[in-house]
């Protein structure tokens, strides 16, 4: 039972701990990426990953299982896939999701299709971990939110954790899954502190998390947008507007049941997302509501997303680009008022 005493740690720490537990428990698990050991070929200290998530792994499990690579995402994502097809369980880190462009074929055509092309015979226990999200001045090529784009590829599961325990728990489920899972961490949330159980229980892929119970409107969001949504909801609560917040956690498969059940009650939907305004995750959720929850709705479902442009660099520009909690409040005000 002492295992169940909650600990406090950041998302980065929870992920680091989960990596340690996974490599300890599963001899077939390996980790592959750039600078995840860090200092390869040098005589200094290990870097342990750009965000510290892989710290200490190499010195504990050795560099044959924790593997630094050249800057060759196509080659090493493909290597992870091949390893997964032949009996290993690789966690491949792609530093930023913006970099999937350089290795997209290995994701779109190779990893996503391997099981199907084998007529179902081959397991592909491949995890690709990457980061997403704007807000820290990293500009157009280190700030994108490509969870929706990735989730549209048949054959891939996509998860986005927004708490330390979900991060650790989803990583564990991803590793256990027989098919490729892409996990995107929001960079802005790595420092977020939360309770985790010491043994980091797995969190099932495909199940959302009810963040806040409410009755007037359903709000779906992940990552930093979830943080802002929660803030907005607190403000709205003071004024008597009751927001139900769902963190889907899993982008694909999506917990449509949870969303539709919530809509039965609230009859209104707002999706807040950093992904693209057209054809992104927000549209996917809207489509679920419109196609399958139409009769529950009492008003048009709405989305709040950034303008349909690349992520800008300057601080004011980036702040204006991202949906703010104030914008969420006014959007909900508007939606409540319209009826």
């Amino acid at each position, binding site marked *: 039972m002492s295992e169940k005493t909650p600990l406090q740690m950041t998302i980065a720490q929870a992920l680091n701990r989960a990596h340690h537990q996974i490599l300890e428990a599963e001899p077939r698990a*390996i980790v592959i990426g750039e600078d995840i050991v860090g200092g390869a070929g040098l005589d200094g200290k290990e870097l342990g990953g750009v965000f510290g998530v892989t710290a200490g792994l190499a010195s504990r499990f050795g560099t044959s299982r924790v593997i630094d690579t050249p800057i060759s995402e196509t*080659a090493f994502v493909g290597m992870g896939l091949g390893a997964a097809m*032949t009996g*290993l369980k690789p966690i491949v880190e792609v530093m930023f999701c913006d970099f999937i462009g350089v290795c997209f074929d290995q994701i779109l*055509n190779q990893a996503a299709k391997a099981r199907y092309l084998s*007529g179902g015979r081959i397991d592909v226990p491949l995890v690709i971990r990457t980061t997403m999200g704007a807000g820290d001045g990293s500009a157009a090529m280190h700030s994108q939110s490509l969870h929706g784009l990735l989730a549209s590829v048949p054959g891939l599961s996509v998860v986005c954790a927004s708490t330390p325990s979900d991060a650790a728990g989803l990583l564990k489920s991803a590793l256990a899954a027989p098919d490729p899972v892409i996990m995107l961490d929001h960079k802005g949330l790595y420092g977020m502190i939360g309770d985790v159980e010491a043994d980091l229980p797995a969190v099932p892929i495909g199940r959302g998390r009810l963040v806040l119970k409410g009755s007037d409107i359903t709000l779906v969001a992940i990552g930093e947008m979830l943080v802002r949504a929660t803030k907005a909801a607190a403000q709205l609560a003071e004024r008597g507007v009751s927001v139900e917040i769902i963190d889907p956690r899993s982008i694909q498969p999506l917990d449509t049941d949870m969303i539709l059940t919530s809509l039965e009650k609230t009859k209104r939907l707002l999706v807040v997302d950093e992904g693209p305004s057209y054809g992104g995750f927000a549209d996917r959720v809207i489509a679920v509501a419109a196609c399958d929850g139409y009769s529950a709705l009492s008003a048009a479902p709405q989305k709040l997303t950034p303008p349909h442009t690349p992520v800008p660099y300057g601080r004011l520009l980036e702040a204006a680009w991202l949906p703010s909690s104030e914008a969420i409040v006014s959007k909900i005000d508007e939606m409540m008022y319209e009826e």
Partner: protein
Amino acid sequence: MNTLLSLYKEASFIRAFELHIAVASEAGHVPGLVHLCSGAELVEVAICRSLTGPRDQVTGSHRSHGLALAMGADPVAVAAEILGRKGGLSKGRGGTQHLIAPERGFLASNGIVGAQVPVAAGAALTAKLMAAGGIAATFFGDGAANQGAVLETMNLAVSLNLPLLFVMENNGLGQSTSADYASGGADLCARAAAFGMKAERMDGYKGARAIKQSAEIIDYVRMSGKPAFIEANVPRLSGHYFGEKADYLAHHEADDPLEDLAESLDSGVAERVRLEAEQAAHDAVSDALNMGEAAPEKSAEVVL
């Protein structure tokens, strides 16, 4: 049976297999286009002879019928997959460019030029970590040699010391483009060597030598745990895809390695072996043809 004769037998079987696939294609029994390996059989059989699945794993290009067979995949299941039949390796889901028989050491073939190469690096990594003496080999063309995926993987394999054999079949053509044009006349074997690998040329017309050379270089990869590279010259005897009107090849007439090989054998014996192979290939393809077309299963969307 002596080595050369059995090489001839296996290669003849593949040649005949492709021929019967071509016949089936003409008759309208193949869903899409097929890229036949005719001309490269000898090299493929010679190299695969030193590889044993599932410990060793091979990946190949769009032109991999022969390679899958050379690794020992069931000819009927291979033919059935190419024909989109129920009994196919992947129940007709994958098709001609997606042959998968890892139990035999044929991990995958690929529709994206070069994409099979990084995947083989993964099989090599598994072999390295499992430390059971396995290696991986990956076959690709002169056209693929210019793809980032291939070039990156050469570097990766050197950097990480992966037991991975790169086999480039240089047939002088990538679709309708000459290899010389596509690589600006670069010496592709020397280019691979410059990545820091052992790299050798293999004469695709010299069976005995190819077998010996393969055994040696595969032994090197196995023992050293390091990558190596083979450039094999082979002819492309049947168009980019079967049925192509290859007008861009004006006066092209390539020698046939199998004919050369046959000449070095006792002609009566060779002919008998060839006829047997022809018969076996005929039987395999017609057995496959007799299977029902692959059809949807009610169960899971996953395998439709």
